[in-house]
């Protein structure tokens, strides 16, 4: 029977080059909620994001992933994307030779959306302005010569253009200055307002969460989800770090 959660993974274990990284992960995210995934460096948070998106660099060794009522464990990343799943990259790749505008249009057309070119241009120009992006970036090669902040803004622009059902934001806030951070926060808020989007935010930085009502915080240590709780857990982690969770995990 399909679950009532938008995203649900059960007993999910995954490996890279036969090295186990994720162990028996159970995670459920209902539609419209904001979930946060925290954990020390190397805990496997980004790996979970990539595995949920179907990154072929990882192999699922057991368990399953359900999204929007369908089992997507075997689905290719492009199909997961078209099903409404979105992964914002911690380090967005550069695509030399492809203007950002062409990429955005290919993305929209790939979803079978019929948008007149004039309408498309107007839309992306508006989104760029919302995110304090110089529209000149739209004609530049994707990511090439962009600062870290600009790359993250481009990720936000894609999020707002595609309006996915669930967005996994993998440390979208890392390496950003205060101004860029506020732009990214604005992007997240807009996404929530525009389409009542669901968020799974992977972060170390509690600042990015200040303007969001967090529904649930998950803590990952050594590839396992070791704790989950309400937003108060963020303050506890902020004050005390992950030591308690790491000790609990090693005791088990």
């Amino acid at each position, binding site marked *: 029977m399909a679950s009532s959660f938008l995203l649900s993974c059960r007993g999910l274990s995954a490996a890279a080059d036969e090295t186990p990284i994720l162990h028996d992960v159970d995670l459920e995210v209902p539609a419209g909620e904001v979930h946060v995934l925290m954990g020390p460096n190397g805990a496997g948070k980004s790996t979970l994001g990539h595995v949920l998106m179907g990154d072929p660099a990882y192999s699922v060794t057991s368990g399953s992933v359900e999204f929007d009522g369908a089992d997507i464990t075997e689905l290719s990343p492009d199909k997961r*994307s078209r099903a409404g799943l979105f992964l914002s990259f911690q380090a967005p790749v550069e695509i030399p030779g492809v203007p950002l505008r062409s990429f955005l249009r290919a993305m929209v057309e790939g*979803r079978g959306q019929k948008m007149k*070119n004039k309408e498309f*241009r107007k839309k992306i120009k508006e989104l760029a302005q919302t995110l304090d992006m110089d529209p000149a970036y739209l004609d530049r090669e994707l990511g090439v010569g962009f600062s870290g902040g600009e790359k993250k803004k481009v990720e936000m622009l894609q999020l707002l253009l595609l309006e996915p059902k669930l967005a996994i934001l993998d440390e979208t806030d890392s390496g950003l200055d205060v101004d860029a951070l506020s732009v990214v926060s604005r992007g997240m808020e807009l996404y929530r307002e525009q389409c009542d989007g669901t968020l799974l935010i992977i972060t170390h930085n509690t600042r990015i969460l200040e303007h969001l009502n967090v529904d649930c915080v998950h803590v990952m240590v050594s590839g396992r989800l070791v704790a989950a709780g309400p937003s108060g857990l963020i303050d506890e982690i902020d004050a005390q770090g992950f030591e308690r969770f790491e000790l609990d995990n090693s005791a088990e």
Partner: protein
Amino acid sequence: MKTKQTLIERAAAMPATTWHFLNMNDVRIEIPEDLAIAPKVRVFEPWASHGSRDEFENALADAQEAWELEHPEPTAEEQRARAELLEAEADATYGGTAQSNYQVQADAIEEARSLSVAFEHGMGDEVAAYLRYAAEDRVVISAGPGEKVNAQVLVSSVQGGVSVAAIDVVADEGSDVELSVVVDSEQDAAANAGADRASQGLVGTTVRVFADKDARVRVERTQALQEGFTDIDDMGLFAGDRARIDVRQAVLGGSCAYAGLAGDLRGSSSRIEVETRYLGRAEQVRDFNYSLRHHGAKTRCNLQANGVLADKSKKTLRGTIDLVRGCKGAEGSENETVLLVDEGVHNKTVPVILCNEDDVAGNHGATIGHIRDEQLFYLACRGLAQDAAERMFASAIVEQAALDAGSAAAREAVVRLGERMSPGFAELFEGADDDR
């Protein structure tokens, strides 16, 4: 029935050959004999910049005089010492064996102490002579000291004909010249998809650039020919002290496209930058030959080629940087990025760095392959499967060429080509300037 062909063997030859079995030292060009000479060339330039027919030769002769003053003939004693050194080097390196053809030729050029002898055409002398003959007339763009000139030459294809422009650019000391060359099939040209290769006509340009001290010359050549036409792009460049020449080429259309560029970085601290963007699809053939010789001290050159090859297209790129004796502190680099979209493509790249001087740097690199795994995953995360991603790369190179076009005519030509490739392409650029 196959028409009789004029063959130009060993065109666009690289200076120092590699293994013959690789079949990439030069290229053989076939020109149908029944093509009529019919140049269709339009020139837009300020009247004041219209130069005299022998302006280029005169500029080179003046430069020769100045160069000889700075580089007096070696004394008999110096010549003897040099000969002894060469002999000793030959003994040490080759056990006294003969020099290669390249070395003999290179030494002969240097010993001639003549800038006109050293001046080369990228496509070779035979092709350049043919193009000059076919052009019938010569366009000479001349900028006086400190002047700024902007010119445009449009060369249109002619069905069953040879349409060629011969262009000389003479930029005096401290001047600034911008030249846009658009090689195109006009809007009303009949569609001839699938036509016999090279049977429809030949289009070409032969461009000579003389950039005197502190001059700056930018040449943009955009080729957006209809299928079936052959394109020949020949260039020869001369850079004086601190001169800078930038060449930007977009090779997008036609069936066979041959491009050859040779440059003499004669003046100290002179610089030549070449940026090439190309697309190969269907059964298109692309052949590039670059040869840059550093004579002056602290000279710089950079060759950058980016291309996408799809279907059964073929491409060869020969890039030679020659660091000639005396060019202390010079730096040359060449780099190519080729994306192979289909398994049926044929790609050859041969970067060559020749060095006869200490204290110089020569770098080369090539990235050849399919879309990288991390790029593919990123694109897949945005809903683009591999085939959609590959299609995007092929059309993106045309879009980028349209976006980067330095003139309205160049952009229109690229957009027309894009529209022929993919109906609806032109709509992408309607009102695009309003966004900027």
